[in-house]
């Protein structure tokens, strides 16, 4: 009997040791999921239930009403807001223009820096590099003044163009271009292909994975912008959804349309979360590469 019991004890000790990591990981998952779960629940109840502090832990029956109110309407019982469909459209335009614009201008400049030798090449390289050290937060007022002088306040151009110069994307593409074998360039030259042909037929197709990876990162970056849209948009028609939520909350009083706010929050999270989950492989690659 004795050896039997011993081995049983070892087994249960082993089981406990292997359960602990699961327990911690599940706890971690719950800590991240719980706030989202409560937001989803909040978006299915009415404002009065939430306002009284009686929000249950299970879904209510107001889901369609709340999402319809958030998506289409401009007025709740206590708040005025831009319809979420307009704000989501603004966010989408901002995220896409920033992501695609950054990729386009940095792939061109990286191509110039990597494949040509010309006077002032390093000056240009450092000029681009320096933008790493000038995040929008350290030049808020003067940048705002430039945009205002150009008449770009409350325009998509003002919202996006000041954010599309990016040293990280340029450095990433340049790094990748340096790994393209010389033989490939020589072969293309012998075949009579010029710099433009080579770019379109060879460099762009080879960069596909890098472009996809960067797109995921930059789309999320663009969608989640906060300080810049807060500064350059005044009219309700130009509001982005992340800004819209905090404007709806105001001072965060108990008696406000929390149901509509929570529905808006869920809608605002959907596109970037979908991009991360659906493009997980590229997302991780983009993140790790662009920080090198």
């Amino acid at each position, binding site marked *: 009997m004795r050896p039997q019991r011993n081995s049983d004890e070892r087994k249960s000790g082993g089981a406990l040791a292997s359960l602990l990591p699961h327990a911690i990981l599940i706890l971690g998952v719950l800590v991240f999921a719980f706030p989202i779960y409560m937001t989803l629940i909040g978006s299915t109840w009415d404002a009065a239930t939430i306002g009284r502090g009686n929000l249950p832990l299970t879904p209510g029956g107001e889901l369609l009403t709340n999402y319809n109110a958030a998506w289409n309407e401009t007025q709740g019982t206590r708040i005025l807001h831009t319809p979420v469909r307009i704000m989501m459209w603004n966010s989408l335009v901002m995220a896409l223009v920033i992501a695609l614009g950054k990729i386009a201008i940095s792939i061109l400049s990286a191509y110039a820096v990597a494949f040509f030798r010309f006077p002032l090449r390093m000056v240009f390289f450092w000029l681009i590099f320096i933008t790493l050290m000038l995040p929008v937060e350290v030049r808020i007022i003067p940048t705002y003044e430039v945009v205002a002088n150009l008449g770009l306040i409350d325009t998509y151009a003002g919202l996006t163009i000041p954010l599309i110069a990016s040293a990280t994307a340029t450095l990433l593409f340049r790094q990748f271009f340096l790994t393209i074998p010389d033989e490939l360039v020589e072969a293309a030259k012998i075949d009579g292909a010029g710099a433009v042909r080579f770019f379109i037929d060879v460099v762009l197709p080879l960069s596909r994975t890098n472009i996809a990876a960067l797109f995921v990162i930059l789309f999320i970056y663009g969608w989640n912008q906060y300080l810049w849209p807060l500064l350059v948009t005044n009219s309700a028609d130009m509001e982005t959804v992340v800004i819209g939520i*905090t404007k709806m909350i105001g001072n965060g009083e108990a008696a406000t349309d929390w149901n509509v706010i929570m529905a808006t929050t869920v809608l605002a999270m959907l596109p970037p979360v979908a991009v991360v989950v659906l493009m997980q492989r590229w997302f991780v690659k983009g993140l790790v590469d662009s920080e090198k």
Partner: protein
Amino acid sequence: MQRRVIFDNKALPYLLLVPQVAVTLIFFIWPAAQAIWQSVHLQDAFGLRAQFVWFENFEAVLTDPNYLDTLRITVIFCAAVTLLSLGAALLLAVLADSKIKGAGAYKTLLIWPYALAPAVAAVLWMFIFNPEIGVLGRALNNLGYAWDYRLNDTQALVMVVLAASWKQVSYNFIFFLAGLQAIPRSVLEAASIDGASASRRFWTIIFPLLSPTTFFLLVVNIVYAFFETFGTIHALTHGGPGKATETLIFRVYQDGVVNHDLGASSAQSVILMVIVIGLTAIQFRFVERKVHYS
């Protein structure tokens, strides 16, 4: 620094550089130069006349007890966010990297918060910890703990630290996981065969081998806590109660955009610029070192 085989067009490279250089000059270099110019000038209320005042603006900013208080809060905030999000991420990454059932599922469930905007993370936390309507905020009060982050300085700071760290864990998790996967299995197996316990394996092998990743993340997290948490704070506490959760970035915004004090705001901008340049320099020195090691 450059390829051996290149193309020899004369005008084309300049043409390719035009879009990025134009945007950089107009929206980065020129405004940054403006900020530096404004930081050593005093402008009248209408912005018509400006007087060169040397470092008076900096003197005013750096001797303002309010600013020094903001600096203190920023340091506490940065340190807390960095330690908390790095610690939690390292723990979860080490566990998810071990041979465990469902490791893939855990990974997916832990990385998606990266997609959330800092301001949205703040809204989620507000909805749970609001003392009147939040599930946990009410629970705390029902248990007899007087919880109201809208009135209590310390609680407000705890709230912004938790919301900011919560959002950053997934980012650190991804990098720690990549770092862990680069550690050769054979080293760990050898230690395991030699009878080293799990915690000994961690502290003598895994942790030292992870140090480049940890150091890199340390810099990134400080930058995050410094600059990107503006949305968190703006959405959650508006810097309040009083100035209890005002960080340096929040104050630049407050002085420049809300109070229109150009001299003070641009002096603060220049101070921040120096901080970013310092952090970037540290980061690039480290990247070079990493290249030498491998």
